[in-house]
């Protein structure tokens, strides 16, 4: 088995830059979303299609990112 249809794309969610990484293993698509900086994983999801896996992960990541506060420095 190999990772197929591997993609790694920049996006913006809730005002934050993120990276959406998706690949297929067998019949399952795996999607992981990380913040662009520092690169920590925020959410992951699986699905029968690329779109399904990414949509589920995006929903989770958007919810978490919406809770991040920006403070005055």
């Amino acid at each position, binding site marked *: *088995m*190999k*990772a*197929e249809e*591997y993609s*790694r794309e920049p996006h913006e969610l809730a005002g*934050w830059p*993120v990276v959406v*990484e998706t*690949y297929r*293993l067998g019949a399952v698509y*795996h999607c*992981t979303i*990380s*913040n662009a*900086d*520092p*690169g*920590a*994983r*925020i*959410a*992951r999801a699986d699905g029968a299609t690329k779109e399904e896996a990414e949509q589920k992960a995006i929903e989770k*990541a958007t919810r*978490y*990112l919406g*809770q*991040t*506060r*920006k*403070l005055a*420095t």
Partner: protein
Amino acid sequence: MATSTAQNVLVSTDWVTQHATDDGVRVVEVDVDTTAYNQGHVPGAAGWNWTSELCDTLVRDIAPIKQLEELLGNSGIDNKTTIVLYGDNNNWFAAWAFWQLKIYGHDDVRIMDGGRKKWLAEGRDLSTEAPAFPAKKYVASGPDLSLRAFLPDVQKAVAAKGAMVDVRSPAEFSGEILSPPGLPETCQRGGHIPGARSIPWGKNCNDDGTFKSVEELQALYSAQGISGDRPVIAYCRIGERSSLTWFVMKYLLGFGDVKNYDGSWTEWGNLVGAAVEKP
């Protein structure tokens, strides 16, 4: 990387493809995302969970020596095994495991350059089978605490204006955010330890997840006054990103006295009365 230092601690994805199941070699995946191993891993690789196997689950601490000996023995590793670590997020927790293995005296530990990201992107073979290994006896030494900074070490370094590297993102360093975007806030104050220089961990790596060349790394660190001519302490939020920077400074750049402060910002940023600097 073309230095003798790097050749002793880094292996390529090609090398792993050819040697992953050799006698005397054990490949181990350690991920931030503890479910990643089960999705598919290097065939023959063991999987370690950083949240339960590479820490003390009662006291905040690294793995106790007996726990580590058991983990290694059950992974079919003895004191002579070549351990090759890799993982997601450009090897964050692979470096965390590397650091602990060095604290406990394992001689031959290496990191797969590029980690899980490069392995996936190259479309290499994956397995979902968790291999069983014949148990071996492992006897750890140490701990070698010259590799680890505790709070008093950091307080002394602040007082002496010693070298410290904050490897978090610029927004964490400045105090604009209290945690990486999307993750829970785990400190009471934002900013950085007084005197620390900002060298975000990601600057150590190329887009494909591999480490930059020694020349590029030397330029990166020397531009911030970090050249290995004096002791240096690396820190981040919980100590895993800084273990990657510790690996870079200690093993790729060959600095003599490098410590990882795993208490990091979750300790310093919650201390009552601790000095905090903001740009």
